[in-house]
């Protein structure tokens, strides 16, 4: 009798449970669950603690104050401008001949530095990569190629350089207030990552001269910010139209 009952069930399910239904169910059952407030797991906290204590003592040091929010934007943002301006000051303070600075958007890893204290941690989170600061001597022609790349990226962080993006091309280019001369060579401050052709910066490869300043971008930024802060400066949100779009 019992077996009979199962045979009936078997026939019933065999008849109605087609693979078509499975497919439909797969699509319908998707849903979202609300956020949940969670306590911290004790074992995990215990694992983190010794690392955190050591790190905090080095990371929580204030090295600068931002007097407004510094945002990462294209074609030009106050965050990118600040980073390039400060690095240019670092290079010049260390007696390097530099005409302009070019970095990439992908190298800035936080979208904004908020108004208020800037700590060592802020800079680590902004520039976590271990890239070195380098100076390249580049021909005017190579510079032109690089400016076109900047245009194709819709603008990147720069300093000492002004240009206008017209479609895929850069126009009205000037270096430190002087019209760009394609027959001249220029000294470009950048990262070794870009200098090796990273992030499509092919134009920076094989320069006339390559000089590694033997310091990470992040460390140069920290040193220079400290220097500026101790002499009473704060950071302004500066957007001066160095890169514009037509």
């Amino acid at each position: 009798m019992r077996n009979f009952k199962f045979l009936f069930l078997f026939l019933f399910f065999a008849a109605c449970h087609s693979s078509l239904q499975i497919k439909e169910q797969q699509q319908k059952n998707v849903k979202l669950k609300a956020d949940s407030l969670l306590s911290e797991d004790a074992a995990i906290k215990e694992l983190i603690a010794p690392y955190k204590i050591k790190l905090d003592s080095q990371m929580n040091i204030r090295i600068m104050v931002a007097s407004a929010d510094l945002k990462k934007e294209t074609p030009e943002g106050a965050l990118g401008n600040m980073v390039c301006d400060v690095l240019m000051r670092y290079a010049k303070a260390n007696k390097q001949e530099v005409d302009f600075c070019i970095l990439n958007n992908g190298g800035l890893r936080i979208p904004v530095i908020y108004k208020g204290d800037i700590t060592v941690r802020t800079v680590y989170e902004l520039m976590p990569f271990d890239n070195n600061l380098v100076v390249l001597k580049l021909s005017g022609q190579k510079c032109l190629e690089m400016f076109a790349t900047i245009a194709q990226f819709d603008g990147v962080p720069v300093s000492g350089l002004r240009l206008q993006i017209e479609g895929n091309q850069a126009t009205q280019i000037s270096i430190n207030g002087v019209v760009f001369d394609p027959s001249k060579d220029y000294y470009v401050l950048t990262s070794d990552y870009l200098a090796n052709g990273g992030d499509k910066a092919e134009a920076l490869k094989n320069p006339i001269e390559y000089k590694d300043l033997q310091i990470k971008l992040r460390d140069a930024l920290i040193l220079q910010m400290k220097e500026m802060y101790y002499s009473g400066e704060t950071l302004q949100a500066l957007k001066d139209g160095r890169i514009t779009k037509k």
Partner: protein
Amino acid sequence: MEELQKNNRKEFLKQTLYLVGFGALANSPVKVLAHAEPKTLSILHTNDWHSRIEAFPSTDKNLAGQGGAAARATLIKKIRQEEGDLLLLDAGDIFQGTPYFNFYGGELEYKLMSEMGYDCVTLGNHDFDNGIEGLVKQMPLATFDFVNANYDVSNTPLKGKIQPYKIFRKKGIKIGVFGLGIELKGLVPEKLFGNTLYNDPIPVANQIAAKLKHQHHCDLVICLSHLGYKYKENKVSDEVLACQTQNIDLIIGGHTHTFLPEPVFYNNVINKKVCVNQVGWAGLQLGQIKYTFEPFVNIQTGIQSNLFGLTNTHNS
């Protein structure tokens, strides 16, 4: 009473087992077992958590108190308590993004993931940020497996430390997990990835997935992908992967830091559904894909998903 139910259930199982035999003999569909209790298996997943050991600080205007390994561990424990055995996966870029990585090289990340009981991860481009040596150095701290099928690491120190795929058994369900990585050239300095060679993910995926499904008879085939969700330009992505392959059930993605509000379904080359999911970055969310299987035969009958935002009581 409870004992009685147990006995009844035993009897029931015996009889249904008998019916499987009967069904097979009669060359009928084995879906007869649908009325028995279905099995569910959860896949919990993260991607691109980028060394976000702690929750975002209170000074962060948008993300204060969100994320953090300690809150994630609590959530995972809770789900384990409710559901028992499950699969916990990560789609790469565990490393880089906070000073924890700059100072400790990923040591703490792997320790914490081991403590949380991660089963398997794939490699993201940033997992190479301290070079192959830097990666290999931390691997002994990981109790989980590393999978990647499209990097040829045979001439690097990673040889033997990464498998193309790994097969897991959870709740009697056989799950094949394989990994795919993004082209490192142009993304990672060459000195960091050394002799790691990149192979086109699509043919590799087809080959490995077929092997897992038909040779190893996996009930579920999962791809841990660090290819990225999708691109404007013509570039291989999870979307391309889903549409141009077969035998993959689920793609857990990463790299593009995409916050998908819910998983997306694509039709593969033979018009079967492929589920693709990705949960942003920084350990802000935990994804859950829950499969229902018919008992004994382990045929997939349903899929559900949950998305958990991680908000920490301590910092918020």
